[in-house]
């Protein structure tokens, strides 16, 4: 019983950090741009396909594909900001408008992926030797451990960027007071576009990680990741970049420990119960500040 619980906790931390990465990128975009990116999961799946084709066509391992995917998705996000997101500011209610536009984009991307890649589930050809490590009676797949390490490095790099560099502080300053940022001479559009690029770049990397850890991916799973992302950021605090890490780990722990004892469906259900409980007890999330805006 204790070993099973321990196994669930370890899995929860590993999967939770991946979930955290989904939430962090979603939260950066929401915090800075007030854009409810309902297409985030589709960008994650696109990242997985990116790694798949980088491996098939260029012979790149998923790890080596990460910087490439980050740059390509970052540029795509930068451009997409000017094509799509910037125009939302003209709406009377940009947040709701963004929700609808991004939901539409999610459907479009899902349909395009279905057309381009077909409905078959695919998986990356990526294994490590040895495939498992044993810590006592705890079994840990080495790909999961690698995924954990990458998630820690990426989250750490993002935290360093946000809390230790001037552009990162400017980005957090937008979250705190969007109206005031122009006063200090920041080009709001440029920084907003960079933020959207950063969010999509991180989504691309996350896509590679989930395709390394989970057995397969297909055009249909994007909305599952979006849903997980929103659960995570509501748990951690909407708009709080690092709150998503706590939210992700909490959700991962709840889901994976429940999966040890019950079925996958119950585990997912428990995640939602946790979400409802947090909303009832602390509506702003674990790290959120009530009525901060």
């Amino acid at each position: 019983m204790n070993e099973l619980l321990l196994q669930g906790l370890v899995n929860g931390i590993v999967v939770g950090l991946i979930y955290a990465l989904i939430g962090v990128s979603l939260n950066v975009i929401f915090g800075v741009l007030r854009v409810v990116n309902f297409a985030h999961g589709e960008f994650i799946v696109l990242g997985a396909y990116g790694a798949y084709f980088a491996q098939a066509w260029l012979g790149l391992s998923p790890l080596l594909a990460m910087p490439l995917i980050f740059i390509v998705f970052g540029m795509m996000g930068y451009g997409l900001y000017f094509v799509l997101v910037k125009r939302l500011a003209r709406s009377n209610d940009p947040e709701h408008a963004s929700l609808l536009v991004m939901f539409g984009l999610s459907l479009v991307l899902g349909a395009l992926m279905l057309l381009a890649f077909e409905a078959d589930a695919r998986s990356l050809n990526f294994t490590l030797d040895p495939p498992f490590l044993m810590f006592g009676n705890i079994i840990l797949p080495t790909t999961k451990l690698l995924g954990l390490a990458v998630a820690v490095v990426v989250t750490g790099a993002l935290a360093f960027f946000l809390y230790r560099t001037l552009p990162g502080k400017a980005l957090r300053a937008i979250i705190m007071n969007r109206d005031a940022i122009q006063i200090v001479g920041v080009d709001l559009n440029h920084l907003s576009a960079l933020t959207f690029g950063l969010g999509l770049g991180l989504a691309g990397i996350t896509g590679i990680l989930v395709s390394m850890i989970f057995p397969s991916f297909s055009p249909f799973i994007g909305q599952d990741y979006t849903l997980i992302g929103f659960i995570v950021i509501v748990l951690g605090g909407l708009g709080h970049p690092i709150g998503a890490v706590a939210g992700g780990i909490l959700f991962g722990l709840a889901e994976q420990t429940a999966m040890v004892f019950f079925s996958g469906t119950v585990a997912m259900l428990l995640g939602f119960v946790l979400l409802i409980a947090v909303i009832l007890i602390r509506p702003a999330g674990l790290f959120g500040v009530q009525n901060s805006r």
Partner: protein
Amino acid sequence: MHGVELSMENISVAYNGDITVLKEVALRAKPGEVTGIIGPNGAGKSTVLKTIFGLLSTKTGTITMGGRDITNLKAFQRALEGVSFVPQNRSAFAGLSVYDNLLLGCWPFRKDKARIERAIDGIFERFPILKEKRSTLAGSMSGGQQRFLEIARALVTEPKVILLDEPTAMIAPKISKDIYALTRDLADQGATIILVDQNVRQCATISDRLYILELGRNKAEGTREDFATDGQLKEMVAEWMNYKIDV
């Protein structure tokens, strides 16, 4: 401080394209002077400052700074040109430390580390309280201290033109006095200052030149002496603002 002349000619501004809030407004602010803008609520005083800073776009007219046309520059470009703005609403970044707020103020020359260090040291010399609280989160300071931080952040770039919108609104009287003294001091050092203030008495006391706006239009203008000696101007201010300007 090396101020430059800033002038607005024939400026009209409209919200949503058709709600005109400024109509052919003209204004001239000179280096070494405080130019005060007074007028009743809804006169468009804050709108003038937002327009000068580029937060609102103009329908007609030109804005020049040191003879250079800046009408089509965006807000961040005007900041790079040396315009600083302290808005009426809270603009300190509450979740950042005092030091980080000042650091963000250095954004226009963010790649010049030596200049950043010099600029922040200069600010700490002028505002010892900020040096003392350099690691404190801005949001945990008093309203007066936050206002000083906002003004200090506006000064960190050694701006040519400083726009102050109701700098003493909701601030304790003692701190307000210090803010007015600082404003006068900055002008005496050569800065070009445009001050919008509901406190007509204080605004008239420290301003060298005054503009009165009414319903988005210029109503009257003149030096402080003009307002104190010209019977018609004096009467107008007395009637509108319940205050008589003296030399």
